[in-house]
């Protein structure tokens, strides 16, 4: 019985995958519930899962969840695609010119190692509270992974494939569209996946400092009033956003490069 259940979980099907996720979620909820029932009885530190669910429904009922979602999703929904577009464009430029790459490369890695999040208060001072400061901060934290993977992906293109295309008298543009770019695409998508996680951190921090609405703002506000249940409800929503994006990009990556999996 247990052996059969174990074998089922080991399988590579969609149903088995779902069961694995459900099982681990249930386990975490159980541990959480037990913790709040035994060791951590101070409700300012940790509340039971059911209280969090209740707080979540309350936020939905009052409409606060919706207001915050609109604020956060508008900011991320505009700045993230912009970050991807700009990142790919810079990556293309760097991959196409050795001089640009040599000049821009060190600059980019220097910028990349600066914790841009730390500049959040400065952006708020420059751009004011609200959309613009969020937009710029998310753009800056999300753009680097895309730049790096785009350049790396374009440079990684198989020399044999390029030579074969050249032997068929392909133009440089044809080599780019039929070999180099398709080869780089899965790399780019993996960069986008990393960028998405960073964008969520960026938006939360931006909203901590500079806004009147948004998930980050709500987390901050709940924290300051010691409303742990509401705080955790928003954190879980953010976590779901992160997980969803990561899963989508991963499946795109696998679809674009099925030959890598086998």
């Amino acid at each position, binding site marked *: 019985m247990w052996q059969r259940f174990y074998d089922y979980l080991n399988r590579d099907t969609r149903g088995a995958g779902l069961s694995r996720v459900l099982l681990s979620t249930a386990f975490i909820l159980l541990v959480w519930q037990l913790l709040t029932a035994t060791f951590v009885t101070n409700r300012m530190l940790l509340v039971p899962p059911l209280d969090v669910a209740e707080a979540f429904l309350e936020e939905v009922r009052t409409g606060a969840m919706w207001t915050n979602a609109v604020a956060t999703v508008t900011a991320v929904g505009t700045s993230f695609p912009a970050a991807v577009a700009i990142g790919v464009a810079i990556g293309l430029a760097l991959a196409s010119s050795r001089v640009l790459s040599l000049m821009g490369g060190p600059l980019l890695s220097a910028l990349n190692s600066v914790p841009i999040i730390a500049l959040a208060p400065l952006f708020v001072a420059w751009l004011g509270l609200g959309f613009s400061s969020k937009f710029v901060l998310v753009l800056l934290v999300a753009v680097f992974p895309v730049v790096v993977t785009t350049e790396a992906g374009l440079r990684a293109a198989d020399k044999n494939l390029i030579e074969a295309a050249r032997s068929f*008298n392909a133009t440089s543009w044809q080599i780019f569209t039929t070999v180099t770019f398709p080869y780089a695409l899965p790399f780019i998508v993996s960069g986008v996946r990393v960028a998405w996680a960073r964008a969520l951190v960026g938006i939360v921090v931006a909203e901590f400092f500079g806004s009147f609405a948004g998930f980050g703002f709500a987390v901050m506000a709940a924290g300051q009033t010691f409303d742990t249940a509401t705080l955790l409800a928003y954190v879980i929503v953010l976590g779901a956003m992160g997980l969803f994006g990561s899963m989508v990009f991963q499946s795109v990556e696998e679809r674009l490069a099925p*030959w890598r999996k086998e």
Partner: protein
Amino acid sequence: MTTDYILEVAGVSKTFKRAGQAELVALRDIDIKVPRGAFISIVGASGSGKSTLLRIIDGLLPPTGGTVCVNGKVVTRPGPDRAVVFQNDSLLPWKTVIENVAYGLTLAGVKWKEASRTGRRFIELAGLAGFENHYPHQLSGGMRQRVNVARGLAVDPDILLLDEPFAALDAQTREIMQTELLRIWQESGKTVLLITHQIDEAVFLSDEVIVFSARPGTVRRRLPIPLPRPRDLDLKRAPQFVGLVDEIWKLIEQEVRASART
């Protein structure tokens, strides 16, 4: 008597300049004439510049001296009268078999409908009917090389240039592919120039075998192969066949030994 030569290589040399090292003379004074419809092989130790010569004939590399003429015209770049089948896997992994076979045609601007019809014909010729919509990673090494050959033939070149096409295959698959190549050659009526280091392969397939010396590559000997056609694998046990292989082996033995030491 005038023979119709499709390919004339006259006095071709190739020298590679290497930063911080002595120049590398890869080829010296190569003269080769290939009659239309013939099957000619070039054998030689590794490093004898065979593949370099093939790239010069295709127009992928410029010669340092001398000229290559195909159909009486000097080669300066790859053209539709030549097609290369490379040793390594140079199929596009994100394209299906039919898309790969039609690749050269689509690069030349042929509409998909016509390109895929032509592609289908050569897939059939290569014995791959039913695999049109498979991806390269779903095929065996031998099947991938059939796709490679079909892709070269699909652009309807006058001369097919094969660069050690079966080197990566196991011995049994290689023998099967050799007979397949003979069949395809006879059915298509193309001229074939084969680069190989397998002496028995060269003798089995060719009308004439050109033996290269080791670096710098020069034409050491030209050997007509008077074996009757059609040929099958039993021929490889015939005394005349064994004698020819032996003769060629003795010609390049010293060079192979020399290059094995370095």
